[in-house]
């Protein structure tokens, strides 16, 4: 989308990262020697069907478990198996399902405040204002801080989840299918919000998805995973126009077809909506 914003220096690098899970009877190779880099300010989409290893990769980025072999680097520094608080803060997550990602028994404000408290961001009084500011940044009124998640719609909850991730002031956001639990109109608005935030805050996105339509809207580059292997990596335009790999072609072939005329019409409608 905006290649000029992308810094040359990789903010994130994976070198020969593999992950093997042990079950009672045999080993399952979830990820096989994946190497990739993500530049600052870039949105890298990781696509693949379920079981392709994309979630395993995301979990290792987040430090939920370490790679079996290989290394991950943040700003050129090796990411250790046990993450310190500043390293946790640097890589944050937006989950797929906003119904379960917010605690039903804590207010929106309390959920956001946790991030500020844990990382000691701002002074005690300043945190309340900051929470309001975060909510406004994701397009919600500041007084939503006193509400419980049950009083919010799916799209609003996902905006709160995004605000919570932003509260940590991360460098990298891992977006794990952030729009697939939302209906189509809400999906488009949340994607637009994510795109704005990326440019405003110079964030780096690792966007995990199986929805190639979404990829086209937001990603700069695409990495295609198939059964634990990185099978293709290229710019978004290139992937869609000249997919080199057979698996990539079959994924693209599975997108519901929209003709160019329909696509043009859709853009006009979107602009109208966002204007009004």
């Amino acid at each position, binding site marked *: 989308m905006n290649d000029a914003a992308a810094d040359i220096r990789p903010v994130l690098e994976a070198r020969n990262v593999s992950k093997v899970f042990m079950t009672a009877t045999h080993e399952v190779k979830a990820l096989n020697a994946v190497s990739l880099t993500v530049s600052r300010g870039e949105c890298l989409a990781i696509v693949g069907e379920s079981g392709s290893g994309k979630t395993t990769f995301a979990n290792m980025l*987040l430090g*939920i478990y370490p790679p079996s072999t290989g290394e991950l680097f943040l700003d050129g520094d090796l990411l250790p198996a046990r*993450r310190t608080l500043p390293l946790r*803060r640097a890589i944050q997550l937006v989950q797929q399902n906003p119904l*379960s990602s917010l605690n*039903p028994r804590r207010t929106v404000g309390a959920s956001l405040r*946790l991030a500020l408290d844990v*990382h000691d961001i701002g002074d005690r009084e300043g945190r309340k204002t900051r929470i309001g500011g975060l909510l406004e940044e994701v397009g919600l009124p500041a007084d939503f801080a006193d509400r419980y998640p049950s009083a919010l719609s799916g799209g609003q909850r996902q905006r709160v*989840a995004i605000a919570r991730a932003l509260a*940590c002031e991360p460098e990298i956001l891992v977006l794990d299918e952030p729009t697939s639990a939302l209906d189509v109109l809400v999906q488009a608005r949340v994607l637009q919000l994510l795109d704005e935030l990326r440019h405003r805050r110079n964030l780096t996105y690792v966007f995990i998805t199986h929805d190639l339509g979404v990829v086209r809207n937001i990603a700069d580059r695409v990495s295609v995973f198939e059964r634990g292997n990185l099978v293709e990596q290229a710019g978004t335009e290139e992937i869609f126009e000249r997919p080199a790999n057979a698996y990539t072609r079959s994924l693209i072939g599975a997108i519901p077809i929209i003709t160019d005329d329909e696509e043009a019409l859709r853009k006009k409608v979107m602009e109208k909506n966002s204007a009004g």
Partner: protein
Amino acid sequence: MRRIFYILLSNPLSVIGLVLVGTVVFSAVFADFIAPFPSHRGAVVDFSNFNQPPHWPNIFGTDLVGRDVFSRILYAYRISLILGVVVLAIAVPIGVTVGLAAGYLGGWTEFCLMRLTDVFLSIPPLVLAMSVMGLLEPTLTNGMLAVTTMWWPWYARLVYNVTRSEAQEGYVLAAEIIGASRLHVMFREILPNCVPSIVTKMTLDLGFVILIASSLSFLGLGVQAPTPDLGSMVAEGGNYLPDSWWLTVFPSLAILIAVFGFNLLGDAFRQVLGSDQ
């Protein structure tokens, strides 16, 4: 909160439960004002009026030393409720902490804590309480201790199961990714989601604790004379059945009302708080 009250009042069974529990609690708290003979809670003797069937002013009759059965039941309720509340106030925090730690931390912590819980659960409750009471002096404090020893594992088991399923929820992962401490995740994130189950069980258990405490004192291992206790009143009166039936029937009914009331209310809570999520 108002909604919960509304749902409670729309179900006839929970209304009955509320009324029964309300009566029991009211009698216990205001025993001093309701009881026609407040002094009969202690060692009072009135041989001019002993072993009398129900009549005015002794509406539940009098016992073998001439004390008013009705007054003694009111004070027995007070003892039973204090015992129930104290037992739960000790057993619930212990059980909840054990359950949360085992369910969330997993691994060896889970193995050790839950096997310990299983050991306690495998001993029949009354036998466990009796052996504790046998080792110690049969007093009210030791009675509470005995019942507490057998009660916390049930909360450990309950909270463990809820925690195991809550730990799979996204909000736990979210807190972990943010970098929250384990204590925060356990007590501030997961615990609030266990509260409905805990409250429901506590309401049900108040009835059962009263029943167990009565059983213990029925066996002579609980509250000692002259302090009034429902279980020992039943045990004592049982020797004079069927002639002096009021000595047994009224305290038994009192136990029944308390247990029944707390059960109905607990069931009502289960429905209301269950549908809350």
